């Protein structure tokens, strides 16, 4: 009788322990409570699509480049007068803070353009490395960029002005008019910064506005988890 009771308790305890171990690592409850400025987005069932783009030295940049360690990734465009330079400035501030903190190790910074038509690898190189020589600018096939941004929940629209000066919104899939390059266009876009784990999966996201000092703490917590 006693043996039966003991073994039942044992089975229940094992089941609880098994359940705990199976789920504890995945839902990040303990970690989530400690995060101040980021959201866990990790879903290993939804890996990034295969992509093949160009870094700012015209070298191949694909999924394997996001599997060399932790990365911080953001999407921007160089004709952006306000938000994108602020984001890049924040990233350079973040890197300085991480380097000052001896217990931290800075992820690599990958900056992908929303606007490969104007942001060639050469344009990206001059623009991105102005903020930090180690930042990696990425451009390439626009269709691949459009596919890549989807699992991030990132999106954009382009704005041109008609003859009367009225704004006309063009979705990513809409074709730009022929004179758009000459007349210029701006891009409305999401402005999150993402943390990519060494498996090349989206791990977390930081909505804007960004506060580098708070980001340092969250990034350290997530990398050490």
């Amino acid at each position: 009788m006693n043996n039966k009771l003991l073994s039942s308790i044992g089975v229940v305890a094992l089941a609880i322990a098994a359940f705990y171990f199976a789920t504890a690592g995945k839902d990040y409850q303990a970690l989530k409570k400690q995060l101040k400025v980021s959201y866990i987005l990790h879903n290993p069932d939804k890996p990034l699509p295969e992509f093949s783009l160009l870094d700012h030295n015209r070298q191949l940049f694909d999924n394997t480049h996001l599997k060399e360690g932790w990365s911080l990734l953001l999407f921007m465009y160089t004709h952006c007068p306000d938000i994108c330079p602020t984001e890049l400035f924040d990233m350079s501030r973040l890197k300085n803070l991480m380097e000052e903190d001896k217990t931290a190790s800075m992820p690599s910074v990958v900056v992908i353009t929303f606007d490969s038509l104007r942001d060639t690898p050469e344009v990206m190189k001059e623009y991105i490395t102005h903020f930090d020589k180690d930042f990696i600018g990425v451009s390439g096939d626009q269709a691949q960029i459009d596919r890549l941004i989807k699992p991030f929940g990132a999106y954009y629209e382009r704005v041109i002005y008609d003859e009367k000066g009225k704004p006309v919104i063009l979705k990513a899939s809409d074709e730009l008019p022929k004179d758009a390059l000459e007349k210029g266009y701006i891009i409305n876009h999401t402005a999150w910064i993402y943390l990519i784990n060494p498996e090349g999966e989206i791990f977390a996201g930081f909505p804007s506005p960004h506060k580098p000092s708070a980001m340092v703490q969250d990034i350290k917590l997530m990398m050490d988890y």
Partner: protein
Amino acid sequence: MFNKAKKLVLAAITLITLNSAIAIEHHRTNQTIAEKIVINNPWVRSAPPNTPMLGAFMEIHNNSNQTVKLLSADSKGYRRLELHKTQYEDGMMKMIKQDFMPIPAHGKLTLKPGSWHIMLIAPESVPREGGTVMIDLVFDNGLSKTVHAPVRKMKKIMGNRHYMTH
């Protein structure tokens, strides 16, 4: 004869005095109008050498009893300048072109990153950090101002969410 000359001199003196008085008054009036709009801390954010766009920021104070509108901005060496506001809408950061910027009566409008800003489009040559950009501002009621905006980086310490508000 003497009387005529006396009268002429008197008339001349009166004219000169009147003229100076009007000139002084005119000068004063101009000064009063000019002081109704005061611009503090203008700056242009330093940017990469190939940047196609720059942002200019400042505080515009309106000491008058009426709302004053900033109608346009101009600067030599740029294709054009536009008035813009960054807004958070539908999950996106949007650059909304503005017809004017309203500066409330006895109040101020702060142009800052992530909010109201002047967009300097297609620079002939990108101004370097430490340089100055001269910007002409035209307000309604015919007011105009020229500001000398130093080119500098964003401030590192952004106390009280200085540039965080959208």
